[in-house]
């Protein structure tokens, strides 16, 4: 089984040279720490920076330089800064090659819910609806089950949707799954996790074909 860092490391393997990448808050943010050797990617943060760098050294924090998670960050050489309309032009205009975000639920047709639990928690969608409506390549990073042990990979989302039929791939603590017209297709197992465990933790349609390899982290 993977921890959050493991999920981030596995998704980092999907990065390709020259890509512009938008990372959501939480697990996705960690991906920036594991860029494969020899490739160059630029991170976009929707509050208005392209070429976002690591956290600043202690004492160098700048209140005027944050990411979409409101964390202090740095700008890499070659970075650019812009207003929110330009930022979402990049997103809506499909200039970003990969979007990684977290989710509360994903359905086996690629629907995603991650912004609201009616009557209990309403944080808002932020930029997530714009991102999932436009991006070609969306990976969800999340735990396979919620805190009560219930599956987060469902036939249908029970929570209000963020976007419809948009997620392409899900990486969880248990597995890598592609979204296909026939449901979740199991691609890889996390180290030490059996196909049966993944089946038991997945409520949505799950396709298991042949031998499922274990992830290499």
């Amino acid at each position, binding site marked *: 089984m993977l921890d959050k860092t493991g999920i981030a490391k596995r998704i980092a393997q999907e990065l390709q040279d020259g890509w512009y990448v938008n990372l959501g808050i939480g697990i996705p943010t960690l991906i920036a720490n594991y860029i494969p050797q020899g490739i160059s990617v630029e991170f976009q943060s929707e509050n208005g920076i392209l070429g976002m760098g690591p956290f600043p050294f202690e004492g160098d924090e700048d209140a005027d330089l944050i990411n979409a998670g409101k964390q202090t960050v740095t700008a890499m050489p070659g970075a650019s800064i812009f*207003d929110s*309309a330009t930022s979402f032009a990049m997103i809506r205009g499909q200039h970003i090659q990969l979007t990684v975000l977290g989710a509360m639920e994903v359905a086996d047709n690629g629907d995603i819910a991650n912004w609201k639990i009616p009557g209990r928690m309403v944080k808002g969608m932020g930029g997530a609806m714009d991102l999932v409506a436009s991006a070609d390549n969306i990976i969800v990073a999340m735990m396979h089950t919620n805190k009560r042990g219930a599956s987060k990979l469902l036939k249908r989302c029970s929570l209000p949707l963020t976007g419809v039929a948009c997620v392409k791939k899900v990486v969880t603590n248990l597995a890598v799954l592609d979204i296909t017209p026939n449901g979740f297709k199991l691609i890889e197992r996390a180290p030490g996790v059996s196909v049966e465990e993944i089946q038991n933790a997945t409520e949505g349609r799950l396709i298991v074909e042949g031998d499922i390899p274990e992830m290499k982290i």
Partner: protein
Amino acid sequence: MDKRVKNANEAIKGIKDGMTLMLGGFGLCGIPENCISALVEAGTTNLTCISNNAGVDDFGLGLLLQKRQIKKMISSYVGENDEFERQMLSGELEVDLIPQGSLAARCQAAGSGVPAFYTPAGYGTEVAEGKEVRYFNGKPHILEHALTADFAIVKAWKGDRYGNLFFKGTARNFNPLMAMAGKITIAEVEELVEPGELDPNTIHTPGIFIQHIFQGVNYEKRIEQRTVRPRT
């Protein structure tokens, strides 16, 4: 052409109970601190506030929420504010949550004379309820309308008496778009410079969008999530 006013109190004088305001900023970054404090002091109520976020409990728009001066918020993300969540879930506060990109585009549209536009964001979700859907290139889009305000309040790093503005870092965010969208726009700046000091090639917001400008005082510029790495 001199748009200078003395301070925040003078700048907000025209803001009356029940008005709609736009306030620049993302999180606590690039928020008009001086005008928010002046509004708290003035006690203006029943405000509709359009702002990407709603501050934190004891800073930014959270200060106006604490005093119950806000009737309705139009935002994209409102986490990190317990008092906001409490008022919203109890029904004391009306809240309209809209996708962040649509918020930016709706402000820009208003300031650009574009009454409405189609966007894919929110299709198939609660956000699309009651909105016209139209297909372009085989893909569904929803109709979103321009968003305007009686007053827009923005914060820049530098500005001059003509209203030209220059922003620093990610404090730019919604500020240039809201500056365009306000019927009246107030700009507060950290440094008011002489005309000509700002290079015309690097001005982010041309002065035509600004009606009042002043140099703010005592900027706290609070950091919401201080994240650092150790020096090694």
